[in-house]
């Protein structure tokens, strides 16, 4: 079914930006989608987040969705042609068709300390824009700064850096409201570190490109 969406300018050429998040039960995938929607709401956008899961247990593959746009979002269908993928665990590729439906211009944010090629995802991601594929060592960052291996806060920071769709201030606000106190601050620090990691990597990339 074709869902008509009214075109827009800037970050919303289709009128709405759709994100699909993949993770495993316990990684905070659903929470990440919720917080992304809260951050977008804080930035004055319309947003909708919802999980596809029902009774999955710890470790089982989980999907969640987030739609962001300048106008109210009416459809509530699962996101099947995402503009961006957030993948919390690269090993999901063995059980889930991660890249299905991703738009040619789409973003991919992968939780990994390695590259797409090193993760064995080079072939699967070859058809997408290279500059929109990004890995963030989210688990490592989280383990160091958060004290637990929950990659979602680092990935949200990375998402903000990669897409520029939501502000870091809004993401920090979402974390602080959801987790008041020290836990919220640690999440913010983790997201900030990921944001910095990505922007530095991008700068290095630009410098390399300039040097070439």
């Amino acid at each position, binding site marked *: *079914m*074709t*869902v*008509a*969406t*009214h075109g827009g300018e800037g970050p919303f050429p289709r009128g709405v930006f759709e994100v699909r998040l993949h993770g495993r039960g316990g990684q905070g995938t659903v929470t990440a*989608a*919720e917080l992304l*929607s*809260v951050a977008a*709401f*804080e930035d004055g956008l*319309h*947003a*909708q*987040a*919802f*999980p596809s899961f*029902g*009774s999955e247990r710890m470790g089982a593959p989980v999907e969640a969705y987030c739609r962001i746009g300048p106008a109210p*979002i*009416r*459809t*509530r*269908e699962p996101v099947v042609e995402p503009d961006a993928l957030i993948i919390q665990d690269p090993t999901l590729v063995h059980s889930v068709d991660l890249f299905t439906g991703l738009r040619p211009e789409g973003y991919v944010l992968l939780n990994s300390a390695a590259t797409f090629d090193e993760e064995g995802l080079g072939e699967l991601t070859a058809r997408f824009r290279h500059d929109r594929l990004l890995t963030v060592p989210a688990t490592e960052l989280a383990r160091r700064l958060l004290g637990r291996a929950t990659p979602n806060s680092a990935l949200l920071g990375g998402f903000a850096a990669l897409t520029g769709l939501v502000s870091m201030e809004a993401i920090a606000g979402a974390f602080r409201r959801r987790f008041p106190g020290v836990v919220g601050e640690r999440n913010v620090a983790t997201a900030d570190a990921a944001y910095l990691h990505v922007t530095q990597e991008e700068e290095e990339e630009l410098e390399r490109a300039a040097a070439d």
Partner: protein
Amino acid sequence: MLQQIEGSRAVARAVALCRPQVVSTYPISPQTHIIEALGVLVKTGELAPCESINADSEFAAMSMAIGASAAGARAYTATASQGLLFMMEAVFNAAGLGLPIVMTLANRAVGAPINIWNDHSDAMAARDAGWVQLFAETNQEAVDLHVLAFALAEELSVPVMVCMDGFILTHAFEAVDLPDQAQVDELVPPYVPRQVLDVDDPVSIGAMVGPEAFTEVRYLAHARLARALEVIPVLAGRNAGVLGRPAGGLVHPYRTEGARTVVVAMGSVLGTLKDVVDGLRDEGEAVGVLGVSCFRPFPGGHRPGAGRRRAGGGGGEGVQHRVRGRAGRRRLPGPPGTSGPRPHGGGRPRRPSGAGGVAAGAPAGGDGRRHGPGGLLRPQHRGGRRRARADGRPPPVGSPRRERPRRPGPRRPPRPMSAPTRSRVRFYQVGSSAVGNRLLGADQRTAQADPDRTNSLTSGHRACQGCGEALGARYVLDAVMRATGGQAVAVNATGCLEVFSTPYPQTSWRLPWLHSLFANAPSVATGVAAALRVQGKADVRVVGQAGDGGTVDIGMGALSGMFERNDDVLFVCYDNEAYMNTGVQRSGATPPAARTATTEAVGAEPGNPFGQGKDMPRIAMAHGIPYVATATVGDLFDLETKVERAMTFHGARYLHVLVPCPLGWGAAPKDTIRLARLAQQTGLFPVFEAEHGEVTGVSPIRRKVPVEQYLRPQRRFAHLFDETGAVAASEVVGRLQAMADRTIARYGLLDAPDGEEGS
């Protein structure tokens, strides 16, 4: 305030703003986040006063809402899918009783195969339950519909179900504008119940209605439900004015002007449909969408534009059914006298003329008296004159014998708990407690010796001659009324006691009395107790009562839940050892070898098999509740004493009373007391008390009687004897004697201080 919030949490906050007083909860996906969030609001005191009860099933949750609502509290619960089906009997009951309960239904598929995701088949199963069913498209609408639902329910005295798509809405984060408390207080005024369990104005709710009035009572319920079609637009307009946005309504047309095709749907799918319609309209197609917000009652007058009508979407099989019904020019069930299907319900004979004996517009009774559709009754005596009041309210209660004010002056204070216990006052008279009474001071005599006793179950009821249950119930409830100074409410399970006491439009109950269903009396009692507590009437005590079927079999889950939560209810089982109301079938309390209609005295092992059955008092004790006792109608002084003892405790209490049934046991009516006494004296029925799970006292057996003396007068054991009365089945009688001996040993019935004359 506009906020990005999960649908379930938004609904929980909206419900809290409506100030429900009793919230009964049971988890089931995808509804669970709602009750979790409400539980937090209650625990933190943000929602107060409110009692949140963790129910033991959805059936219990709805039953608690029934009890709470009938006791005057605003009641709320939430469920989904299998949960709705599990509570379905109570769902119908709530509507029949006209109780304005609001329930959120997080729409979910019904298995098998088990599936937790969204469709509307759960709501469709309740389509004809007598509830208003509202469907939300968005979480904003879900919030606003809940605000509307409470006002609507209480305006009409009908229950309202707010349906929101499971996961798609319940788990979706989106922006919702939550109203503030002042706005909701304006839109949802305090609950003024239309009928209520009130000790100062006792009514009986939930009577049995026969063919002569069932059609009329059901018609009244239908007419109230149908009024929702007028009331909803009014409330929606008012709410929209206060909230500053569209806030409900019957239907929501979208681009239907000039449409050749209109898609009719309900729920969250409407958003996608609107996107599709926009796309098709851009391509020049004349299409539109009609969102149905109020599905029951169905807004039949609305025609979604000209041209082709197609129903679908939203899992809406029911929508298709309804819309086709309209398109085919069939009328929805309408009032009698129209061309719609007539309500030939409840045993009303069908006449060849087709008129069905239905007089259009004739309310129940036809004599100017008004009866609540749930069977709202006030005590009436045979022979008592009933005068309708000028204002049309039901006639006052009057006693034909004693002309005294219905509720004189100040309430009688609770009697000090100086009642003698069996161990402190020894009676050596046998067969009459009147003798014992004369030996006692006036304040120590039995409740029945008091000419001013309540007569809780007054004369004129339809129990059989020699009914042990009627005797037991009267003693129990009069003792409760004496112990509480008249501050008591009774909740009754379906059964003989209920049927013989309340043949509509009469009732024998002179205390507030509620009958809901067979299996849910403990849960209903829990709801009543919670409602009284939250209204600051904790001094009004609640008694649940049922027969052995309603206690040890079908009601046991609810009873165990009530025990385990230690709810402040005295539950009384009147044990006559079989399903007597339905014609003497075996229950879990039927003794071995007894003949019943389902354990006939035929075959190699006549009667009820050995090795079966439940020992409910010991099961109750295993819950560790404050007080458990057994008694028989063979020792009514002991029975009253135990009731009064039970009323000194708060929390769950259980009283198991053996009440011989002349019909079911095949005994002479004059032998009821004798058989009850023999059951105790043989050791077959141990009479004891227990506190917090430990036996604290037993009624000793003074002279042990062989079991055959107890068995012989009862036709249900006739196959154990020959025509001369001699034991024919000595092995069976021996096994029963061994059972009695084991029970005697277990409780030390011959060892107790009073028992020296025995053995």
